[in-house]
């Protein structure tokens, strides 16, 4: 494998990882605050739909993204209401959101555009176009280092860079601010937070809304940055892969970034090398290459992660003692 191929695979890795990073960090905020969220998939899907639909109707990708993020945050608030205020089962609420989003996006889409649940193809200002970094061509002429700059770093859509920046920002918020400390405390020991005179419900609502915001960005990226339009169920399990990455990362932002990049890399490799000739063995079948990311996931999760301990109060509604 030569250097150019390596750059291309890493380039593809960044594109494929971005939605995972958004969803994984979204889950991180929510679960660190003690709210399990398997509705990441549904929130991303809702956002992907409204981003593309509004962008297609108004011609502005920013209006689209705003609506997408809003839709995702509405679903997040719904999940919050079910699991914080009404103390319902958080897993069931998450599953409900997934089903709801899958069905409603197709239904609204069909009524809106009459295209069987998809939106029209986006073009021009109604989608995020790749950003060329300054001097990309000049620096690209330099051997090795040049192509890292011009091909790997430059030429992605805005939201890819936002995703990469979201991880350090999340770390800072969670581990270097007072809000972050309280948010983590509410997921470990809500009684202590309550005793300290802070609102457990308020903190948890804020965490779910941040979760909605990040899922919304992930969904907007899928339909207006990565692809050019929405199709039914286009998240295709990314929300669940992000959950796996979250466990793999042991609920830490830095590890989460690497876990998502790893999953993206495995997918990029599977896409790039559909048939590999190994001398003496013959051709590796396509099916094996396509299953490889999942096989490696199982191996990594089973063998290398060690014990992943979730936040202690995760999944349990907080009931104030009387």
């Amino acid at each position, binding site marked *: 494998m030569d250097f150019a191929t390596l750059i291309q695979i890493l380039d593809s890795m960044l594109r*494929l990882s971005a939605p995972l990073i958004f969803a994984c960090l979204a889950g991180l905020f929510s679960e660190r605050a003690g709210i399990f969220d398997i509705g990441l998939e549904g929130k991303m899907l809702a956002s992907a739909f409204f981003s593309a639909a509004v962008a297609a109707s108004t011609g502005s990708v920013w209006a689209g993204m705003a609506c997408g993020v809003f839709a995702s945050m509405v679903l997040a608030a719904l999940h919050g209401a079910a699991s914080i205020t009404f103390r319902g089962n958080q897993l069931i609420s998450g599953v409900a959101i997934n089903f709801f989003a899958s069905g409603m996006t197709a239904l609204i889409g069909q009524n809106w555009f009459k295209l*069987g649940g998809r939106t029209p*193809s986006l073009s021009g200002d109604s989608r995020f176009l790749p950003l060329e970094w300054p001097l990309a061509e000049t620096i690209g002429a330099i051997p090795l280092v040049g192509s890292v700059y011009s091909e790997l770093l430059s030429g992605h859509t805005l939201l890819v860079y936002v995703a990469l920046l979201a991880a350090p920002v999340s770390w800072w918020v969670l581990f270097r601010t007072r809000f972050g400390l309280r948010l983590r405390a509410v997921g470990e020991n809500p009684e202590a937070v309550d005793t300290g005179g802070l609102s457990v419900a308020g903190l948890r609502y804020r965490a779910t809304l941040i979760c909605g915001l990040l899922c919304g960005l992930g969904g907007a990226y*899928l339909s207006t940055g990565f*692809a050019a339009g929405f199709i039914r*169920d286009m998240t295709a399990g990314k929300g669940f892969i992000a959950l796996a990455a979250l466990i793999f990362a042991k609920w830490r932002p830095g590890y989460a970034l690497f876990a998502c990049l790893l999953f993206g890399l495995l997918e990029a490799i599977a*896409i*790039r090398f*559909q048939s590999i000739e190994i001398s003496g063995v013959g051709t590796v079948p*396509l099916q094996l290459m396509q299953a490889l990311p999942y096989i490696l996931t199982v191996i990594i999760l089973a063998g290398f992660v060690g014990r992943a301990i979730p936040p202690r109060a995760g999944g349990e509604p907080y009931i104030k003692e009387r």
Partner: protein
Amino acid sequence: MGKSSRTLAIAAAVSAAAFTAAADPAIIYDLGGKFDKSFNESAFRGAETWKEKSGGEYREIELQSQAQREQAIRRLAEAGNNPVVMTGFAFAAALSSVAPEFPDTKFAIIDMVVDEPNVRSVVFKEHEGSFLVGLVAGLTTESNVVGFVGGMDIPLIRRFACGYVQGVKAANADIRIIQNMTGNEPSAWNDPVKGAELTRAQIAEGADIVYHAAGGTGVGVLQAAADAGILGIGVDANQNHLHPGSVLTSMLKRVDLAVEEAFSGGGDLQTGIVVLGLAEDGVGYALDENNASLISAEMKSTVDDYRSKIMSGEIAVHDYTMDDSCPQS
């Protein structure tokens, strides 16, 4: 005979009458969805054409999951719809078990042969149409690398790929062809994100023309090709209009004709195997105002020359499904 059983008998008679009155044709679309801009959409256009011409009505079902196949066929047949048309090879198993239950109903399946007395099996010679678009690609490419993106990895799609390869090689034997399949599950028909990523990988390897036979996934293939400033080739329906000037041509597979004919046949539909190739105008390549500037007169005459030779049998395009192998790659 009690009163209640007499009521039942009357009810049965009434509903039987209602059923015969509703002998409208019906169509079931496969998982790619009715608006995949490709295979299923072409079938939908055929149904609409029939509706316009005959003034009749038809019923349709869009599958939502694998498990609904048998249920959908049975429901339409029970409701008295005749004939019941289904688009896609994946219906074969379900149809072979349901067809004998309704000997008076005619069924039609596209892309697969089901050997039952009341089934019409329509298959296309996709390898012939793919040969022609491959030839166009081979005559157009400047990098001497072209790509192919298939949907689900099944022999039918390998047949597209094999015909394409033969066409490309007929233009220039030195051209390299990169072949990729999107996946092994029906979801591979509706994954434009992956289709686009596969296309980008092929472009990175030097491809300047990419042909897709991937249903809804192909929307992503053509989009990625247009974004990168290279040419895509559409499939099934005429997809030249999706990105005018960036779609070299489309391999036409007249699913619409097959559906229209099946609908027109009504309850007396001819059963058996129907094969549609170049000679029957069942397959071909698309030429319209969107790609007129891409296809020179010289190219057109070369392609038409091959076309008539294939029709006359002078050139035989190898069919992958005959021996599950392709002579060239």
